[in-house]
């Protein structure tokens, strides 16, 4: 069975409970999600949810149709990965020691990350990029001692003038 990653953009009414309706639907239908993010849109009263999951075409269709059934869901679209800007933000706190400091800073430079906090014992790096880039950076930081980290999950928007909007 094919196992692709899909990214879906969902426009929902910005009212209380809507996130739990969407995430609850995924949970009770047994659809596993890789990431789910939510935030405001250019239009007040609406939020945009970006959901990423792995599965086959069949699963994708089932998820799409179940999303479309929810009363608060106004628009759903599968984003074409080859024509979509997909980004994720990582904040990662790594041990700061005289022996490792230079290596970390080199990696930060190569990955075009930023150091956003510096103390004698710890560094916080900020990185945006596609999931694979974030994963690679985390892997690279492991030997230096990751103290804590958090990542946002992906947000995505299609290239060109094709827009996901409420009709």
């Amino acid at each position, binding site marked *: 069975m094919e196992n692709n990653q899909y990214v879906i953009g969902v426009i929902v009414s910005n009212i209380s*409970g809507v996130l739990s309706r969407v995430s609850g639907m995924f949970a009770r239908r047994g659809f596993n999600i890789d990431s789910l993010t939510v935030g405001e849109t250019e239009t007040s009263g609406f939020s945009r949810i970006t959901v990423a999951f792995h599965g086959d075409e069949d699963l994708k*269709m089932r998820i799409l149709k179940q999303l*479309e059934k929810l009363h*608060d869901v106004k628009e759903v679209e599968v984003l074409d990965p080859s024509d979509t800007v997909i980004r994720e933000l990582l904040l990662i706190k790594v041990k700061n020691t005289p022996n490792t400091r230079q290596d970390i800073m080199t990696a930060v430079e190569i990955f075009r990350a930023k150091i956003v906090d510096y103390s004698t014992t710890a560094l916080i790096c900020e990185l945006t990029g596609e999931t694979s880039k974030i994963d690679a950076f985390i892997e690279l930081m492991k030997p230096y001692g990751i103290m804590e980290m958090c990542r946002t999950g992906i947000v995505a928007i299609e290239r060109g003038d094709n827009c996901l909007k409420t009709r």
Partner: protein
Amino acid sequence: MKISGAKIVVETLIEQGCDTVFGYPGGQVINLFDELYLSRDRIRHVLAAHEQGAAHAADGYARATGKVGVVIATSGPGATNLVTGIATAYLDSVPMVAITGNVPCSLIGRDSFQEVDIVGVTMPVTKHNFIVKDVRELADTLRTAFKIAKSGRPGPVLVDIPKDVQTALWGFEAKPDPVRPYPPTFASDMKLRRAAEMISKAERPYIYFGGGVISGKASAALIRFAELIDAPMGCSLMGLSAVPSDHPLFLGMNGMHGHYASSVAQDEADLVIALGARFSDRATGNKERFNKNFSIIHIDIDSAELDKNITSDLSVQGDIRDALERLSAMAEEKKRPEWNKRIQELRNEEKERLERALASSYEKNCSNCTAACDKQGLPAEQRLTPYGIVDAVSAKAGDSDIIVSDVGQHQMWAAQRYPLKRPRTFLTSGGLGTMGYGLGAAIGANIATGRRSILFTGDGSFGMNLNELATAVSQGTPVIVVIMNNGVLGMVRQWQTLFFDKHYSNTTLNRATDFVKLAEAFGAKAARAFTKEELDSALEQAFTCNGPFVIDCAVDCDEFVLPMLPPGGSIDDIITEIK
């Protein structure tokens, strides 16, 4: 002029054409009940014995008429008691609006007395739900609730109204008409043309329909279509009553306990045309094996049902009546003598198998059941049989009487055997399988239509919500309760007999309930029947009685529901006889 939120609720219900609500009062709906009292000449409130019964009554009201059923309960336990009733309606696509009170907004989230997050609780079992925290939004929210409940594939909607919203004042202007449903999706011409082509190429088409044909008011269109293409029809449990049972093309329910000819004809078909059905596991059995021999055209108003359980060869989203009418205009009129000959063979075979099963020498072992049958020492041939009971009832009942069932063996016997004539005359919990559904639903159906309800139930199911006998008595409901009393939880016992080495774990009831005395204690009339004669005489009384009448029928605990496709099995594993 400003009026209270509670009055806005009542005025909006009346505006929406609601003549009856079912419910139970409590602290957080006391204002709402005050307004119901003041408007009692314009809207009827039926007090149930328990909120679950009220919810089933609203469901029965809706199923019997197609109108939106309304139920009202208080916060906390009142609201949670509705949940099974709401879930029952959700799984069977029944239009319902449930209104709950809640603690004032300032107390929400503080675990106040009788506070529960009913919106959170019912999210997975409603089409949508609301909590109204601003009286200005109350009327429109209720209107939207009705709109959602009756649009497309119908379903329940819950509106939770905190007490301070009920007491707050706001202006209200009644709309001249109830809200209209959202416009339905209509099937695409291209897809219907493809369907017509597939049907015309098929040699052995079989129509499989579900409850969508009833809620889509498509019975007449379905019959015309079936006659036009000369295809046999079978249905799911939910499809029963859409087509008269004696229609020459109708083979009956198929699936786990479906008719032999119906299930086998489906398997031998080269094309199955599925209409308003969801291919539940009870209908398909083993999904790998299910559609090995045929292609599928699936038409449903809900696109999420298409390719959900079974992948079809052509899936069409659209209003079922419209789709059938247009498809009939495109499809080629055909006669299929070969296929019909085969169908007739299957019907004959079904008859033979049934006769064999009924005459089967399977030793009925009553030693560990508490049913009264063996206490009477009646010889086997004089005892009541499940089909005998159904036949005796149908011989006396009218075509417009509403047949209701609980859940279990009696449900399947009634579904297999009862000769139905008109849509919306067979109410049963098909999707959720709610034991205890029947009595409330039977009361609601009678109140909605004024027609007699006949409930087939078992001693297990009846025991779950028999408190609604109190409601039937207080409302003077002409409901005949036919208890197939076998002293056991027969459906589970049947599985234990067949698949669990007769380990009758917790299915032998060992109760000493006297249902006649019990009914009389509630103020209802009742009789007991061990034999056909006793049953006939009890029915004679029951059909002339204006209130509820309970008939306790003794049934052997080792009666089986047959045929049976074992769970997860297929047509190859069909059991038509117990040896």
